């Protein structure tokens, strides 16, 4: 009997043990009802559960369909990306990749499969050199190290096949990571090119000023730390400007390229050469054995550059000068060293004894002094520190003062009298000579108008002034402003002017002559002494350089030259003036030679006031002049 029924019967018994049927029936009925209710609950629950499951199933199907659709979109999207893409799960298993990844690495999609490890992925690229470094395992280890962190990272891999790929690792919140690949080869090449352009001279491809300067800074630092010496060479091409002016900038550029190529070919790897600009180069030599090695190298450079090169069918020999400085010293910075090398270069250029010079401390002192002179000279005119002194030009025929040469003098407020040889050259270098020349011309013209007699006034003209036709205007202005008779004015130019710019000089001389102003050829005999110049230009006067006058008596050649010049002057119907006449016997000799006039200490030192020359000549001079005068007259009569 069922244990429930047993209990129900037991419950339905009264105290006497009789079964109360009604009570029993009630209990059994209750049990049946419980079973029914239980069945109803179960049925209801099952039905509801089925409904819910159907509903969920329907939603799931929709979701699957939607997911399929989204997958299609997703696939289209990732395959349309410019970047390659690989998504790995937390177990080093490839889940997603796109076509661009395959295309980027030249892989067929069949070479890829879901679940492949990163190592297997990398191995598909191994034989295509799509890794970097020498060791394949190191590369794989590097890749695994990158993806094992939970931080975003991006790195450009320069693969051995030349491709540059930027690979970004994006860790995923659920574990795993997303790799994106961007081909940045063009960008890397462009950046490299930009770097090259920023640090190299575009014409010669040599390191540019900033680059070579940085190299120099590093060299100084290294040399200080490791206690050794290095050298720098400042190289400059002589006459490069003339090449540019005469053959054009394209030819000039060709010369620079050629020079750069020759320099690159000859220097070793530990020597850095850069172009500072123009025709200036800087060479940094790490650890030279000694100064001699640097000198040898400098000489070698000059020799190699001197070798003939042909530009636009012009054969050229490039002359170079080199300034050498050695570093480091505790207080020498790159700027100072470059300055030293520049000073040495300047000295090499001006000395003309050697094509290279090593910097010496004295050079610095000289340059500082020159710099001060140049600076002060700028203010000299406005502060009326300049003066014009006059030196008489005396006729060898009658001893009369026929004219004066205007000579500029500088009375410095602190340094006192500064002789012309200390500042004229500087003024020429800096270009200030033009301004000084203009001032002297105007001043001399004005003062000449105050003289009692109408002696001529000779003013020196520098090559700077003759580079422009405006000089003619300047002369005209000086004449108009002073009111001087132009026939009293005489301009002295040197032979070098004629050589530098013959065409323009000729035009200027022609225009000046047209105004009635005379032109004298100064310092004749020291330069080119070209007879063709004398024939080509109509000089009203030739001035024999003082060096020949100094040589009279002791040097037969000087006498011969003087005779020749006098004879030439006579042939050209040009007055011949001797400069630097200091001794009476020089006067005698010059007069005998037939020289027309002279100037020098014998007749008077340059002085501010011309009146003192009019007090009368020295008796001895006068006697010589008189005697010679008559002798010459007789000679002429006899001949």
């Amino acid at each position, binding site marked *: 009997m069922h*244990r*429930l029924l047993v*209990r*129900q019967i037991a419950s339905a018994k009264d105290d006497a043990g009789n079964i109360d049927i009604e009570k029993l029936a009630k*209990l059994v009925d*209750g*049990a049946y009802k*419980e079973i029914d209710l*239980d069945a109803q*609950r*179960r049925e*209801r*629950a099952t039905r*509801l*559960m089925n409904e*819910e*499951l159907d509903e*969920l199933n329907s939603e799931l199907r929709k979701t699957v369909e939607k997911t399929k659709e989204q997958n299609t979109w997703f696939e289209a999207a990732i395959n349309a990306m410019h970047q390659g893409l690989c998504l790995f799960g937390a177990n080093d298993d490839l889940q997603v990749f796109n076509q661009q990844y395959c295309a980027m690495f030249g892989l067929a999609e069949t070479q890829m499969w879901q679940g492949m490890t990163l190592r297997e992925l990398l191995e598909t690229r191994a034989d295509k050199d799509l890794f970097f470094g020498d060791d394949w395992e190191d590369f794989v280890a590097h890749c695994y190290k990158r993806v094992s962190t939970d931080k975003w990272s991006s790195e450009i891999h320069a693969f051995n096949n030349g491709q540059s790929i930027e690979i970004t690792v994006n860790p995923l919140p659920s574990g795993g990571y997303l790799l994106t690949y961007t081909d940045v080869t063009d960008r890397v090449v462009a950046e490299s090119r930009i770097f090259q352009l920023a640090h190299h001279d575009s014409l010669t491809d040599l390191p540019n000023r900033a680059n070579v300067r940085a190299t120099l800074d590093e060299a100084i630092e290294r040399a200080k730390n490791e206690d050794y010496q290095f050298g720098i060479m400042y190289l400059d091409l002589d006459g490069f400007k003339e090449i540019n002016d005469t053959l054009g900038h394209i030819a000039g550029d060709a010369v620079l390229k050629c020079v750069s190529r020759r320099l690159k070919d000859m220097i070793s790897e530990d020597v850095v050469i850069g172009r500072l600009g123009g025709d200036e180069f800087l060479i940094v030599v790490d650890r030279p054995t000694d100064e001699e090695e640097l000198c040898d190298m400098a000489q070698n450079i000059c020799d190699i550059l001197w070798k003939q090169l042909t530009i636009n069918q012009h054969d050229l020999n490039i002359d170079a000068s080199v300034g050498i400085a050695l570093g480091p010293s505790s207080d020498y910075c790159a700027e100072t060293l470059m300055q030293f090398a520049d000073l040495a270069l300047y000295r090499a250029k001006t000395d003309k004894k050697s094509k290279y010079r090593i910097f010496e401390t004295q050079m610095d002192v000289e340059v500082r002094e020159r710099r001060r002179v140049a600076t002060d000279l700028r203010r000299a005119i406005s502060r009326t520190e300049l003066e014009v002194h006059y030196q008489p030009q005396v006729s060898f025929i009658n001893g009369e003062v026929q004219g004066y040469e205007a000579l500029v003098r500088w009375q410095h407020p602190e340094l006192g009298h500064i002789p012309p040889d200390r500042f004229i050259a500087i003024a020429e270098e800096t270009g200030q000579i033009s301004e000084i020349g203009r001032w002297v011309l105007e001043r001399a013209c004005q003062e000449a108008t105050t003289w009692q007699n109408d002696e001529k006034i000779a003013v020196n003209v520098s090559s700077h002034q003759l580079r422009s036709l405006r000089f003619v205007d300047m002369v005209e202005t000086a004449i108009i402003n002073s009111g001087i008779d132009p026939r009293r004015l005489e301009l002295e130019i040197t032979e070098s002017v004629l050589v530098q710019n013959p065409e323009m000089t000729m035009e200027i001389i022609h225009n000046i002559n047209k105004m009635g102003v005379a032109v004298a050829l100064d310092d004749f005999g020291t330069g080119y002494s070209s007879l063709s110049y004398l024939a080509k230009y109509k000089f009203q006067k030739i001035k024999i350089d003082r060096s020949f006058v100094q040589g009279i008596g002791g040097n037969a050649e000087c006498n011969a030259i003087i005779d020749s010049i006098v004879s030439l002057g006579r042939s050209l119907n040009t007055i011949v003036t001797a400069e630097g006449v200091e001794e009476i016997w020089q006067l005698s000799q010059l007069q005998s030679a037939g020289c027309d006039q002279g100037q020098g200490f014998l007749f008077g030192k340059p002085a501010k006031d011309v009146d003192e020359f009019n007090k009368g000549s020295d008796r001895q001079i006068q006697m010589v002049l008189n005697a010679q005068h008559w002798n010459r007259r007789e000679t002429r009569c006899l001949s």
Partner: protein
Amino acid sequence: MRVETFSNTTAEQLGQNWQFGFEPDLMLYFADPDLAQDLHRALRQRAPNATLMGCSSGGQFSRQAHASANATCAAVKFDKTRLKSVCIPFSDSTNSQTAGLDIATNLMADDLAAVFVLSDGMQVNGTELVEGMATLIPNHIPVVGGLAGDGDQFVRTFVGLNDQVGEKMVVAVGLYGDALDVAHGCEGGWTPFGPRRVVTRAEGNVLYELDGKPALDLYERYLGDEAAALPASGLLFPLWVHPTNEEDQGAVRTLLNIDRDAKSLIFAGTMQEGAVAQLMTATRDALIYGAAQAATDATSRNKSDSLGLLVSCIGRKLVMGQRAEDEIETVDDHIGQDVPYIGFYSYGEICPRSSGTHTMFHNQTMTISTFSEKDVA
């Protein structure tokens, strides 16, 4: 150790007529809600020196009276085991975890061997209470017991300890010494069914939404006409709740109350947002099998006298109907013929899932523990 159990229908009978041949150390009782307080006082008078502890319930039973008793008691005389009891009253603002921690703080000692705990059944979060005790009491010390009941009314429950009896209390007795041996078993017999749902909104032990829909709606739908009998009818469909992907950490949860305005369900344990919940159902045979399994696990290894304490969920009684006694009878068959026991239908069970594991708060289970003393040199 000596044990006597007694079941009868009135307080007077229990208090006056119950004769036992020893002076008990511990007296335990479970009684109908309307009888519990009077019974407590009567028993206190009957054995004023014993530790007296008990609670109201959803029905009580013993080996002698499987279903008919209004109250059931046990008197225990220990040979070696020492006792210490504690009563923690709590207010509405008291956190259940704090109450659990207070109990542990009072009872914890090096030789603590087991804890038997009874709690107010309506006003406590069983999960938090157990967590509070577990803060100090290590896993190898079993904590067993349950939440008091109120028949199938879910209104008021009482617990009592010594001179105190009433609502809003947690009482516990600690059993100390090497001699005590405790075996325990805990099984349900319920099976999850239907879709898995996600707890999308919950606060403490209040469940508001499953899959974004009011939780009460789900229960009303499944209960149909029986929804009118909520919260009691909610016991028919307990919830299987576990953290996502951690099914082995799951627990059965049964509702204690509902809030029709908020469309929420109030459980005896914590409901975690994000957890997975699934409705459960059971056949009578499955529940009976569960009880048999629990009894087998709780069978004492000692041949000497022992006491069985059974705590079964009120929900099981509801489902079992007239066959509720089948569950008790199967315990008789498995726990051993000579083991006396008393038990009650609770609003929540407290027991480790298996030996050596941490104590958990359960619903819809039969939990059985047997206490005995072994010979200690």
